């Protein structure tokens, strides 16, 4: 990979997609992404309400793909709604529900809708979701998905070798979970993801900063932080009980005993506030670690809280937004499409 050592943002090759997220990262600024939790609704307004809050505080907004194996509005559809309104989405693709044929079609379709960032995931299993009876697909895994997307973008062809008329210009991301076994393999897996085409990484929730520091030490020793942008996953815990639920029931989330004890010692009515404080502290701690390019803030259906955390962590203002107009309703959305159509004519 061509590296330019003098830049603070060393993972610097030519622009992959020119997405806002990519530009923020390549400029060396500390980036923020936030997770938008898809609604259980056919009304786009729910998407816009959540996006309105997040877009002011984040450089890009991730639309999850049936995370935890729970069905919600699809990621592709949310991203399409968001790009129409001028927002910057990150499309999440999990390998759980779709085979390679469907996924390659989605990559093209999303790019056609203006999506410029794609996060390639293996995906949580169906067994923890709301429909554990479903057939799991896993035709690809995250690494094969990454490579497939890279082939489409760089070689301009499908896996089959069939040529694309126009290549999807996308900034490709992957996940990393430094907090679960086999620990020594995690940086190697990161390396594998970089080789498969990852431009940026969003990690699992970080509730164990010492473990994360160890991981980053290995990452720096291998020089990986110069080849990929690493955004650390963070999020507020609502209560001691919530923390316990997360670490026992949500796959891949590890919360240190220290943090659970700290919440337990706090009176019940103040636990949410304490959870927020812990999150802000973790942001400030990981920010100091060499090789960390940003944070990815996640809080299930608490967009307002995400905004508060980003504000109070001193990460505002964000580089200026280029939102044309934000439709306030479905009618507003239609109106905007009509206007866009007029402009295009």
């Amino acid at each position, binding site marked *: 990979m061509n590296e330019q050592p003098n830049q603070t943002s060393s993972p610097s090759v030519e622009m992959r997609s020119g997405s806002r997220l990519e530009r923020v990262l390549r400029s060396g600024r500390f980036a923020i992404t936030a997770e938008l939790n898809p609604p259980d609704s056919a009304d786009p307004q729910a998407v816009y309400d959540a996006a309105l809050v997040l877009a002011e505080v984040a450089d890009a907004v991730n639309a999850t793909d049936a995370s935890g194996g729970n069905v919600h509005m699809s990621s592709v559809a949310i991203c399409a709604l968001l790009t129409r309104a001028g927002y910057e989405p990150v499309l999440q693709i999990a390998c759980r529900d779709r085979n390679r044929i469907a996924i390659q079609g989605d990559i093209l379709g999303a790019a056609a809708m203006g999506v410029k960032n794609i996060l390639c995931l*293996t995906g949580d299993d169906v067994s923890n979701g709301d429909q554990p009876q479903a057939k799991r697909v896993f035709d690809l*895994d995250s690494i*094969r998905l990454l490579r497939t997307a890279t*082939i489409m973008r760089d070689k301009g062809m499908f896996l089959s070798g069939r040529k694309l008329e126009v290549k999807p210009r996308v900034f490709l991301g992957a996940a990393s979970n430094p907090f679960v076994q*086999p620990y020594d393999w995690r940086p190697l897996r990161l390396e594998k993801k970089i080789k498969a085409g990852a431009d940026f990484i969003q990690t699992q929730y970080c509730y164990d900063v010492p473990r994360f520091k160890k991981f980053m030490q290995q990452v720096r020793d291998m020089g990986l932080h110069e080849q990929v942008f690493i955004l650390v996953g963070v999020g507020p815990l609502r209560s001691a009980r919530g923390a316990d639920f997360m670490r026992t029931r949500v*796959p891949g989330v590890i919360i240190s005993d220290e943090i659970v004890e700290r919440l337990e010692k706090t009176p019940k009515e103040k636990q949410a506030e304490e959870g927020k404080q812990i999150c802000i502290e973790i942001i400030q701690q990981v920010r100091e670690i060499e090789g960390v390019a940003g944070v990815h803030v996640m809080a299930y259906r608490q967009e307002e809280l995400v905004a508060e955390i980003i504000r109070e962590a001193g990460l505002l203002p964000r580089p200026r937004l280029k939102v044309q107009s934000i439709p306030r309703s479905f009618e507003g959305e239609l109106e905007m499409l009509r206007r866009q159509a007029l402009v295009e004519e």
Partner: protein
Amino acid sequence: MSFRSWIQDHPHLLERLYQFTERVFLGLDPLWSRLGYQRTEQLIQPIEDLAKKLMFDCQICGQCILHSTGMTCSMTCPKNLRNGPCGGVRANGHCEVKPEMKCVWVEAYERSLDMPIYGQEMMVIQPPLNWELQGTSAWVNMVTGEDIKLPAGWRDDE
């Protein structure tokens, strides 16, 4: 079951066995081609399936990469992952999907450290599976080269 865990605790022995089998099979190719690969498969597959089932709980994907996955069958991973562990591994190192089972990849990684011949192959990026080969003999596919045929887009032409 106990045989399987005993043999799997000796990854170096296994990788040598693998290497030996591979050489024998490739070396006997003139014989197989005279016999016809289809007939070879009919003769060999029952033995292959039984041996691999006993040793690795083989899922008969027909494109064996055991040596690249710590002599641990990656198709026994409920997500059929072929490139390493997912992020759902539990705090005790067990599987997200089957809590009673140790993560296939945690085992694969540990075993690969004990494999001087093929251990490094864990870093190879494995291509998408060819589902057309499922249920066929991986040994015969190795001899004919069917198992390493890549999708045209995946190949490194540069």
